[in-house]
Structures are given as structure tokens and as C-alpha cells.
């Protein structure tokens, strides 16, 4: 028998190279441009795909092993939560509105992102890039499913969750994240990576998952905190992928810089608008709060974002164009959204409410320059209307922004007393925007954004023709159950009754 020769011990990087990147080859029977037909048209120049740095060198064996461990933990908690009436542990049923937004508006985005990453996992010519995208694709399927599973038990006991699949395609506030993901998925592969991999994952998801999920824990919702943190552990890989991808583009060719900067500007603003909903979830919908939206922004937006853009400055990248406008909006946006949600609550599959005195004291403390001055007077008046038996409902519906699709609830960056209005014309049609940022995005690609499906104008077209009851039916909203003021709702009554049963011996 031959002498045993000790095998070379392979370092992680080398092992990963052999087990992953070395699997590909230069094709000779087919033209590379036909195999990868979408890599050139956006104008990004890549000279050497081998220069790609792999983020987190996971091979499939480790992937299966660690992900299975996460999954076992997650479903153990979800099962226990379902078996032990875990829903009665939450601080207050008001909190459920945040979860309803999550399921209707955010979880479908996870699925869409998965679809996008599957495409990128095939369209990029480098094996390292492909595999990183594929892992993200399968992770995103995971996120959509764990979220649906975690919230499924709430659906059995509370209103507003049951029609999330219909809401995703038809409900007015759901088109905000839907159009965001549709925008990304309909873009080319490099832009998609900036949109989701970089702007959404790296710059913004910390704001979505970390402080809000910490808040879920604080409010006794172990199901949500578990899916949140479990998903976010995948995001750490995804964020690193996003950052590596942007560095790769910038290092490959100086001509890529202006294109990449344009996408950063666009997608930062797109993402910032989508995350506005999260500001309301944090400031208004958590009965017990860990930190305000402003405080979260200071940590994850300003501190982390500034560090990131300072780091990228060596490539010539500057902070996104909308950065200053975003900062000016922080102390206003959650209040502006909640006022909107409350007055249009006849058309939401979630409840909203007038903040209590206690809530308002907290908001005043967290927003010393804005809440008492601008927003408290409105809430006090709304309270009076309700006390007089003329609860405020704004049947005027709302003008929507052609780009971000949000109702135009925002004020001028430098004047919180004036509603922000921007408009433009393209091929003889008028279009309206909520901000310079959104108008700019439209004007860069008007043929794209004129196609936007805007839910409020659609309500007056066929098949609904302006009939509110028909619309409710069409979006799966059951009037008097899913919508309206939390005060007096079925959710409130049921939760209080069940909790009373569970905490007494009667």
C-alpha cells in the first residue's frame, strides 16, 4: 500500500473557493452574453468577477446545519405560543395593529425579494455572487413563511389578518411596499442589488427589525420577536452581501460611480418612505415602548449610516441626496402617518386610536420640538369630535404620490405647517409627488412610474366605480370588524374578556 500522505489542511477561504467558486467555468458552446443577457444594459462595467469577495463563506452543509437549528428553535416557540394562548401575554390588543401591518404589507415583500434574489442567483456571471444571492433567495422564502406561521395563530383569534393575501394586491397602504419591491424586481440586476441588497438590507432593515422587535419582546409577543430576530440573523449575511456588492461595483470601474450614486439616492429615498410605516408602529402601536422612532433613527440611521457613507467616501460616494430631508422629517413622520391612519381607518384592515393622555405625554417627551406644538392640538380636537359623537372620518380619501404611493401626508421639510405638494407633467398628463425625492425619481424614469397602479384613483374606476362597500368587499375588509377605531372594536372586547377569564378563577 502507498504511504499515506497527510492531506493539506485547507483554510476556510481556500476550501470555500474550491467548493463553490471553482464549480463554474468559461463556456465555449454558448456565448456568455446569451447565458447572462442582463448584465450589460444598465451600464455597469465589470472587468473581473473573480475579484468578488464572498461574504460569509457558508457551504451548504453548514447552511443546512445552522439554519435547521434556527428553525427548530423558532417553531418550538411558535408551537408553545399557539398551545398556551400566547396571544394573551401581549400588553394590549392595540399592539396587534402593528402585526397586521407586518403581515399585510411587509411579509409579501420578503417573498418578492426571494424571487428577485433567485433571478440574481442566476443572472450574475460570478459563482460567488450567484451563491450568495441564492442563499438569500431561500432565506427570503423562509422569512415570508415564518412570518405567516407566527401570525397565523393571531388570525385565529383576531380580525384584520385573514385577508392578507388579498390586501397585498389591492389594499391602498399595501401598494407602498408592493410598488417598492415591484420597482426593484423590474430593475436590472445591479440596480436590484443596490435597491434590496444595499439600501434596504444594509441601510434600512435594522430600523425595521431591531428596535421594533425589541419592542415586540417588551410587549410580551414572543412569536413576533422570535421571527424577527431569527430573520434578522439571516439579514446579517444579507447586509454583508449588499455591502460587498456595492464595494465590488465601485472597485471594478470608476465609470460605475455616478450610476451607483444615482441608485443610492433613489433607493435610499424609496426605502425611507416605505419605512415611514415603521415609525408609526414604533411610536404609536407599541403599548410599551423601548425607544422612539427618533431614537432608533439616531442609532441606526444617523450613527450607522454616517459611518457607512464615511467608509464609502474613499470611492467618491456621498450620503444619499435625500439624507437631509429625511433628517428633517424624522420628528414629524410618525405623527403624520398616525393621523392619516386614524382618519382613514374606515378603509384599513387594522385599528387605530386616539393616543391616550399617557401616550401623548410620552410623545411630547420624545418629540419636544414638534409634538405639543403641531400634533397635540389636532389629537385634542379629534378627541372632542369623538366625545361629541361625531367621530372624525375623512371620506375625502387622499391624493397619493405617484412614486412612493403614500398619501401625501408630509409637510415641507422646512415648514411643518404647509403640506408638501409637488407636481409635474409628462406627455400631457399631470403627476403628483410628496417630495423632491419622489419627483426626482419619477423624472429620471417617467415611462416606468406612469404605470404605477395607484389604489385611490383606481377606486373610482371599474370595477369599483367609487362604491365604498364594493371596495371593502373587493379588498376583503369586513366593515365593523377589521376596520375603524380600536376603542369599541371586537378585538378589544375579546382580548379583554379572554384575559379576564385567564387571570381570574371565575
Amino acid at each position, binding site marked *: 500500500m502507498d504511504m499515506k500522505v497527510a492531506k493539506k489542511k485547507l483554510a476556510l477561504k481556500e476550501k470555500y473557493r474550491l467548493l463553490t467558486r471553482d464549480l463554474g467555468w468559461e463556456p465555449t458552446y454558448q456565448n456568455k452574453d446569451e447565458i447572462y443577457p442582463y448584465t450589460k444594459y444598465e451600464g455597469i462595467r465589470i472587468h473581473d468577477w473573480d475579484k468578488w469577495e464572498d461574504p460569509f463563506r457558508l457551504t451548504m452543509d453548514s447552511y443546512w446545519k445552522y439554519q435547521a437549528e434556527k428553525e427548530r428553535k423558532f417553531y418550538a416557540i411558535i408551537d408553545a405560543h399557539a398551545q398556551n394562548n400566547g396571544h394573551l401575554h401581549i400588553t394590549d390588543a392595540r399592539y396587534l395593529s402593528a402585526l397586521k401591518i407586518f403581515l399585510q404589507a411587509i411579509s409579501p415583500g420578503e417573498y418578492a425579494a426571494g424571487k428577485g434574489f433567485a433571478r440574481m442567483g442566476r443572472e450574475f456571471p460570478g459563482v460567488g455572487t450567484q451563491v450568495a444571492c441564492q442563499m438569500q433567495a431561500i432565506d427570503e422564502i423562509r422569512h415570508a413563511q415564518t412570518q405567516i406561521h407566527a401570525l397565523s395563530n393571531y388570525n385565529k383569534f383576531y380580525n384584520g389578518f385573514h385577508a392578507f393575501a388579498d390586501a397585498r394586491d389591492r389594499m391602498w397602504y399595501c401598494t407602498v411596499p408592493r410598488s417598492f419591491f415591484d420597482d426593484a424586481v423590474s430593475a436590472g440586476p445591479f440596480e436590484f442589488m443596490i435597491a434590496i441588497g444595499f439600501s434596504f438590507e444594509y441601510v434600512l432593515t435594522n430600523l425595521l427589525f431591531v428596535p421594533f422587535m425589541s419592542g415586540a419582546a417588551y410587549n410580551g409577543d414572543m412569536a413576533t420577536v422570535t421571527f424577527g430576530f431569527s430573520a434578522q440573523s439571516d439579514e446579517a449575511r444579507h447586509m454583508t452581501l449588499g455591502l460587498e456588492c456595492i464595494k465590488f461595483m465601485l472597485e471594478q470601474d470608476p465609470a460605475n460611480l455616478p450610476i451607483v450614486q444615482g441608485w443610492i439616492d433613489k433607493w435610499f429615498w424609496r426605502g425611507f418612505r416605505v419605512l415611514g410605516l415603521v415609525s408609526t408602529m414604533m411610536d404609536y402601536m407599541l403599548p410599551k415602548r423601548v425607544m422612539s422612532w427618533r431614537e432608533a433613527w439616531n442609532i441606526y440611521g444617523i450613527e450607522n449610516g454616517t459611518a457607512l457613507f464615511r467608509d464609502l467616501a474613499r470611492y467618491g460616494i456621498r450620503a444619499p441626496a435625500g439624507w437631509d430631508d429625511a433628517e428633517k422629517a424624522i420628528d414629524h413622520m410618525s405623527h403624520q402617518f398616525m393621523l392619516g391612519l386614524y382618519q382613514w381607518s374606515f378603509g384599513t384592515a387594522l385599528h387605530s386610536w386616539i393616543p391616550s393622555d399617557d401616550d401623548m405625554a410620552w410623545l411630547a417627551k420624545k418629540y419636544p420640538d414638534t409634538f405639543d406644538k403641531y400634533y397635540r392640538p389636532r389629537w385634542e380636537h379629534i378627541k372632542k369630535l369623538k366625545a361629541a359623537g361625531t367621530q372624525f372620518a375623512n371620506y375625502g380619501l387622499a391624493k397619493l404620490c405617484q412614486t412612493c404611493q403614500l398619501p401625501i401626508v408630509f409637510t415641507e421639510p422646512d415648514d411643518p405647517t404647509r403640506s408638501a405638494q409637488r407636481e409635474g407633467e409628462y406627455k400631457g398628463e399631470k403627476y403628483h409627488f410628496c417630495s423632491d425625492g419622489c419627483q426626482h425619481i419619477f423624472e429620471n424614469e417617467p415611462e416606468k412610474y406612469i404605470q404605477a397602479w395607484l389604489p385611490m384613483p383606481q377606486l373610482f374606476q371599474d370595477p369599483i366605480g367609487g362604491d365604498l362597500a364594493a371596495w371593502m368587499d373587493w379588498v376583503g375588509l369586513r366593515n365593523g370588524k377589521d376596520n375603524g377605531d380600536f376603542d369599541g372594536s371586537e378585538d378589544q372586547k375579546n382580548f379583554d374578556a379572554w384575559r379576564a377569564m*385567564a*387571570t381570574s378563577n371565575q
Partner: protein
Amino acid sequence: MQIDLRTVSIQPQRQAFDHLVRRFGDKPASRYQEGSYDIQATENLHYRPTWDPDQLIYDKSITRIVMADWYALKDPRQFYYNTYTLARARQQETTEANFTFVETRGLADMLPEELKQIALKVLVPLRHVAWGANQNNTFVCGYGYAAIFTQACMFHAMDNLGIAQYLSRIGLLLGDTEALDEGKKSWLEGDEWQPLRRYIEDCLVVRDPFELFVAQNLALDGLLYPLIYERIVDGHLSSRGGSAIAMLTQFMSDWHEETRKWIDAVLKTAAAESEHNRSVLQEWTAKWGSRAASALLPVAQLALGADADEAIGEEMAALKARLKKTGIEI
């Protein structure tokens, strides 16, 4: 604050999400159903793709297969992320144990040199084939329609990658990094591999997701896995003292057994949908099946020599019999 809650029995307000009640009636839904049905956006897609303005973001018409409801393509394994990942993690533990067993007992070194050479020659270049399969299934997931079908394709793609990595480890175990270099050289230049490489590269330009599904998962892998892992490794090599190799490829054999049930179910449902689908599937399976058979012949010869012809003939007959059960005759 932790409240001590008494266990109480509360009547649920409803059993399942609306879209599942519409499909399955008013009863509790399984986690597979919750995680798979209707979770892809279907209406009011906002923008045309810039990468192909003739398509919709999710477009049923980019394949020739027509389904009234794409969610009919149920996975008999009912894999969603959790059940998939747990199943593979268990198999991975077994595989790891097998590799450790072979390594620690020096079984690789005890292999007859001739068998080792056959294993290296046949198995190592196949890691590139598995990577091609990964590309193709990723494509089907990316552009196919409906989560129930496409999620299974993504799982399949990750399995393909896992298999490519196991094959690489077999190469490293039996012949170190040089084996991988040699294997790649054969893949790129060796005459016996060129028809198969051409097959894979031709698949990489097919942009009908369902055709690609047929070309890769049914035609090519439907011949390749029984040929390589059952016939050559478990049969030919094991009977000559190479069962250590079979330990290292157990994952591939088990995996093929499991996944073919899913592939057959997909084909059967699609073929049963209409005469149009059946004839398209017949056309594709015939075309790609015969190409796959001839591409695999020189590979089979590496191990089986003159018996390769007969082996391929038998595998092709088996594939035809398998197809017949799904309602497709070639």
C-alpha cells in the same frame, strides 16, 4: 411584567386565512398550505421589467405550458422551508458521519487504485454538472410561476449546490486538490465530457422555465442519477470492493429517490391539465431525453466500457416507463 395566565379554552374566531378557506374549505390549514399557496403577488403589478419590457414581473406566458391554476403543482413531500431544511440537516448529519467513517478508517486509501481512478474520473467532473443543475433550477425558481412550484425549485437548486460540494469533497478525499484540477480539465477538454458540457451550456440559454425544468430535472438527471449512483457506484464499483465510495454518494442516491416523486408529480399534473401540455411535454422529453442519453454515453464508458451502450439503453427504457406513469409517452 409577567402575568400568570390560567389555561383557558377560547373558541377561535376563524380557522384559516381567507385564501386558504377559498381553496380548501373552512378548516385549519397546514403549515405547508399557509407558507405556499397564493403568497406571490398576482394582481396590479406595477411596472414592466426593464430587462424585458415584453414580460410582466411574474409572467405565466413565458413558458409554453398553460395552467389554469399554477398552484395545482403541489409538492407531494409538502416541503416548505422548515421541513426542507430539517430533512436536509438530518441527511447532512448522516453524510458527515459517512465521510468521517471513510476518513478515519483510511478507507479511501484501501480502495483498489483502479476503482479509485474510475471514481475520480467519473465523479469529479460531475460537480460541474451539478452546478449547471443549480443554475437551471435557480432560473426556474426565478422565472417560474407560483410559490408552490418555484420554492421547490429553489430547494432543488440548493440541493444541486450541496451535491456539487459533496462531489468536490469526494475529489479532495480521494485525490486532494489535484483531483479537482484534473476533473475540471477533463470537463473543459476531455472528449468524453464535451457532449454533456454542451448539453448544460445549451440549457443555460433556454429561457422557458418549464422546458428547463424538463431538460434538467427529468431528462438529464432522470438518466444521470440512476446511471451514475445506482448502476456505476452502488453496483459496478461496490461489487468490486469500492463500497466506501457508495458511502460517500449515499446522499445523491437517497436524494434522487426522494426528488423524483416531486418531479413526477409536477409532470403528471401539468400533462393532465390539457392535450396541449401533454404534447409540449412529449416534445421536450423526447428531444432532451435522447440528447441526454447520448451525452451520458461516453461518461458511462469511463466506468463500464463496452457495456455502456446497453446500460444507457436500459436507463432510457426505465425513464420512458417512469414517464409513462405521468401520462407522457415517448
